[in-house]
């Protein structure tokens, strides 16, 4: 989450006291920006967002608002505390207890595990059909992260490590993503904050896209159809741009309101993205997708929860009413559906975790907490 060693890379303009940069009216929770013309996004946008930018897509085609159907996946309750991190493919289950001090990996006829090194704790648990990756980070975020990669097809428990001594070293923090044998993480190239791309099978790494000085990236979302992520600059708030990643090249998503991006994903020939309509409600996003005819407004979601899994994009949505269920929404390129509903009362979902051919989500409500998993397409 933080890294004093990296702090110099990203010196924010205001030191000490920093006004929120808003009036009392702008500060209100429902001061959503009014629709208006939005500028074309830029990969390295460096100008501050306007005071009331539009979050409406800029596509020339019509915007539709599909009504969600109810199509729950074949959910199975996992016998785990909703406090622990659990991801499962169905065959393999990777667990990290809330303390973050250890992990366990259970699969057909095998049970393995490991302890974090002194002062380290596990912060990410990634699982695919063939690989598991657990990422450890030190408390002060002054040391490079250490990732343990496990080959699930090996007959014995075989691991190898990606860390600060790797050809493309890890950074002290940052996002990780796994899909198939493709792994991405953060690295430093001189003073630039870059993306490292790892081919797990060949154990080879390359430096991908590097952010301009004082810029950064996060939220990589990888699927069968490609990779997307969020880039941002050092303005207050940051100007955020959703981009497609192809090696060391990024291309901004067209149609996304300038500087308002949150997350993105590629699905078939289309794109799905979320934007933050109100900078004072950073957790609340609006989700959009391209369709054959234009753009679909897929409704509200929770920032940080968009993921691609199987042949669909999924994200968490807060209850529509004060006593309603939290929902996991699913978009398969043409149909919007509710894939999961929590219990009622004080309900919300954790970020859904995709692991190869299965999806896991933690659910919290007055009716009881649970973690559930379901196979995906």
């Amino acid at each position, binding site marked *: 989450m933080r890294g004093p060693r*990296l702090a110099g890379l990203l010196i*924010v303009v205001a030191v000490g006291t920093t006004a929120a940069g808003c009036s009392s009216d702008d500060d209100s929770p429902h001061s959503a920006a009014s629709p208006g013309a939005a500028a074309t996004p830029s990969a390295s946008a460096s100008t501050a967002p306007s005071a009331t930018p539009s979050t409406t897509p800029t596509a020339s085609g019509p915007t539709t608002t599909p009504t969600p159907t109810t199509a729950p996946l074949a959910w199975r309750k996992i016998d785990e505390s909703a406090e622990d991190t659990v991801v499962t493919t169905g065959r393999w289950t990777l667990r990290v207890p809330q303390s973050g001090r250890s992990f366990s990996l259970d699969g057909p006829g095998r049970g393995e595990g490991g302890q*974090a090194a002194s002062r380290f704790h596990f912060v990410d648990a990634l699982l695919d059909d063939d690989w598991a990756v657990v990422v450890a980070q030190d*408390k002060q975020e002054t040391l490079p992260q250490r990732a343990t990669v496990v080959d699930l097809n090996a007959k014995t428990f075989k691991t190898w490590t990606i860390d600060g001594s790797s050809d493309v070293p890890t950074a002290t923090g940052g996002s990780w993503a796994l899909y198939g044998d493709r792994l991405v993480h953060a690295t430093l190239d001189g003073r630039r904050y870059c993306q490292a791309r790892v081919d797990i099978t060949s154990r080879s790494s390359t430096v991908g896209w590097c952010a301009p000085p004082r810029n950064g990236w996060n939220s990589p979302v990888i699927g069968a159809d490609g990779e997307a992520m969020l880039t941002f600059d050092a303005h207050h*708030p940051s100007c955020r741009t959703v981009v497609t990643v192809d090696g060391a090249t990024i291309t901004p998503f067209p149609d996304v309101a300038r500087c308002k991006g949150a997350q993105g994903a590629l699905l078939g020939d289309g794109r799905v993205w979320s934007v933050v309509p109100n900078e004072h409600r950073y957790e609340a996003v609006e989700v959009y997708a391209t369709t054959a005819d234009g753009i679909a407004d897929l409704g509200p979601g929770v920032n*940080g929860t968009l993921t691609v899994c199987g042949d669909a994009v999924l994200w968490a949505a807060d*209850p529509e009413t004060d006593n309603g269920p939290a929902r996991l929404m699913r978009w398969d390129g043409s149909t919007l559906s509710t894939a999961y509903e929590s219990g009622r009362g004080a309900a919300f979902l954790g970020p859904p975790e995709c692991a190869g051919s299965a999806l896991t989500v933690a659910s919290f409500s007055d009716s009881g907490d649970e973690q559930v998993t379901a196979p995906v397409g």
Partner: protein
Amino acid sequence: MSRNRTIVVPLVALAALLAAAPFLPRGIHDEGAISPSAQPAYAPRTATAAGPTTVTAAMRREIDAVVAAGRVRLPRPVTAAARARAVRSVVRCAELEGQRYCLGVGWTTESPRAVRTGMIRALERPRTTAGTGDADARTVLSRLMAGTPAARAARDRAELTSAARSVAKVWLLRHELQGVPLPTGFLDRHPEARVAVAAGTRPKATTYPKHKWILNPKHTAAQTRTYWCGPTAAQMIVWGWRDKHRSQKHWAERLGTTTAGTAISAMVRVVNNNTGWDNQWHAGKYIVLDIKGWSYNQWWKLIKKHISAYTAPVVLHPILLKKYYPYLDDDASGHFQVGRGYKTLDKKPDLIGYFEPWNQQRFDPSEPYIARSQWRVATRSYRANEAHFQHNIGV
């Protein structure tokens, strides 16, 4: 004016004043209502907090006993068993007129054994996640153990005496928010907790507006050191009272903040000593209140009461886990935020407004800058507060 008239008018005025005297508000404890004194009728205060409670002889005896029990030599604990013994030595609880206060923990309804067990568990399972400045269990323990037996005794006595002065406030909060009946004769014994009402009438049920927020969103700051969420939250709270701010370094010194962070008890002390948010027209003396076992609705009513009736900020005390703050890059430690607003409209999920000291971008190029003033679905903040190993709040 004739001389006779000069004498008569003041006499008439004096007579009128004496006749009306029984009906006039009697200082700060009667909240300004007029009621016949011949037949006093009282209701618990709801519009404002209770004033300071007088420390009774019984309270002093209890404080003496709890302080005396701590006058032992405490070797530095290096094993888990030694830490557990240390917790049993320093986390001691006082029963103050039916309410329980535990040193270093605050007001709680848990048994002393359960309080200690919770602390020992937190020590056994240390979270080594990145910290933003909230003291973890080991730091809390080490600060409770610091000093000679005499120095600890003086510190414990000051903490317990300060707590005793808040007994009426605690009772009123439990009565209004948790439905706990007040003890028989409580309002007779505690003028600081009551409001006079007309005989035979019942006070109206407390209602709050659907939305309200306080503090100027321009009076916000981002913490300038990774472990200064406490000083920055304190800076913003005091700024909201004085309309001018002092440096985070100043507040770090006042709070006793180290690289290991800030304790919530220090946050409450600094708010009480440096602002008027603790006066009787606002929240009264701030206390550390354990919310374990509170339902969401009780917690939410506390937030609404604090913002609407007290018009005073809340010291929020969540743990920053991704499941509660999904936009974060990874899990982090306990944290302090400034609660300053709420919104309940159109049967939508409740929203809580707060000032966020943590500028994630300042310390990490993997996260964008977000505005300091934020609103979010309140249930996540409730769960994040409940999941903290201390599960308490400064109110």
